[in-house]
């Protein structure tokens, strides 16, 4: 007898990404397609912005959703094959980098084709101009690289700002820190990040 317990969609919100994937796998094994579908939908809907934010840096606009779909399909294939998920965001980042690299490689191999006639409803966009392989990860590493140069206190301040907190909130949670201090630290970080972006090939994003 199966131990699977169906959940209300509203219950999905309190599950971590890893737990949500586990629930989708359990649902499928229990033959509950509706629960599996709902859990997958919640996961994809909840993380699609993140994956898009990585993919859009390296892939032409018309091809972003294809790569994004491949990323989530790869993640779920791995989950349903019983492979370990580990820390989900890191896994997602790794898989996204690979799918971007696949896409870039395939685009280079792809023969130039003539536009499709109206009768064939599959339409493709231009090939990428010159996307850097795994460029999304390069860009992310710049943020981490600049963060790693900061003292522990300043790093915490910038991390809090990156999480979307206001300067007042950050200052309130940091003894001896004022909102002006927070703004100054954040401003220096942003200046360093811009300089790093200007000096990096990865800073040239797909337009």
């Amino acid at each position, binding site marked *: 007898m199966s131990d699977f317990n169906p959940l209300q969609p509203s219950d999905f*919100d309190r599950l971590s*990404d890893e737990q949500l994937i586990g629930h989708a796998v359990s649902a*499928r094994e229990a033959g509950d*397609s*509706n629960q*599996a*579908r709902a859990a*997958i*939908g919640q*996961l*994809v*809907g*909840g*993380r*699609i*912005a*993140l994956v*898009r*934010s*990585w993919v*859009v*840096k390296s892939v032409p*606009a018309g091809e972003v*959703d*294809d790569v*994004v*779909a491949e990323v*989530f*399909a790869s993640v*779920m*294939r791995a989950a*349903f094959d019983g492979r370990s998920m580990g820390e989900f965001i890191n896994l997602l*980042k790794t898989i996204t980098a690979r799918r971007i690299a696949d896409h870039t490689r*395939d685009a280079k191999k*792809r023969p130039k*084709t003539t536009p*499709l*006639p109206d*009768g*064939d*409803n*599959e339409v*493709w966009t231009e090939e990428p101009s010159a996307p850097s392989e795994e460029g*999304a990860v390069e*860009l*992310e590493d*710049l*943020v981490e690289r600049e963060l790693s140069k900061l003292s522990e206190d300043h790093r915490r301040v910038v991390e809090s700002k*990156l*999480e*979307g907190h206001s300067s007042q909130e950050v200052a309130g949670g940091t003894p001896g820190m004022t909102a002006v201090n927070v703004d100054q630290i954040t401003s220096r970080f942003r200046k360093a*990040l*811009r300089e790093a*972006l*200007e000096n990096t090939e*990865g*800073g*040239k*994003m797909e*337009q």
Partner: protein
Amino acid sequence: MSEVDRLLEQFIAAYTAGEEADPAVYLGELHETDRAELGALISAYLERAPRQVLKPEVLAGSPANAIADEILAELQTPTWKTVLPRARARAQLRRDQLVAQLAAALGVSGQEQKVADYYNQMEHGRLDPTGVSDRVLESLSKLIGESVEALRAAGRPGPAASPGTVFARQAAPDPDFADAGCAAPPGMRSPGTEGEPDEVDRLFTNG
């Protein structure tokens, strides 16, 4: 407030409100370093943010919904109907282009129409997979970049998809190819062919 900060703030507001938050929309308003900086900041925010809980009506209209349908369909029943059109689209080959290359690879150039009839039956799940030879699958594998094993597995009959399943990215039937009805059993030649079975018939129906 800089444009980068204004757009980042708008993006975070949409994300936390459960609205569609597509980074590309916000990045599209900027160029060069500003664009790269906003991209880096959006990714850094999303990596640290909780999974987004999209409003139900937003999720229903989101590409995430179609992606989730496609993932479940593929996990449940990868078939030639789903695998072949998708792989062909990835390879950016029109059906007539693929057929011409397949005929050449099989050494039956000049019989493209007959190869097209059989290939069309494969894409529509109407050809008995046990009759399709390894040579055909190996040639297709090279042309569309899907492994022989995956093609063979997708040809095997599997459990029916759930009633709610939508094959979101399946190619629509091509009017250039007439619907020949039910699956042709092994040994049965392509509709409209006369006389003794030839090499093309053997390749697609004799296994």
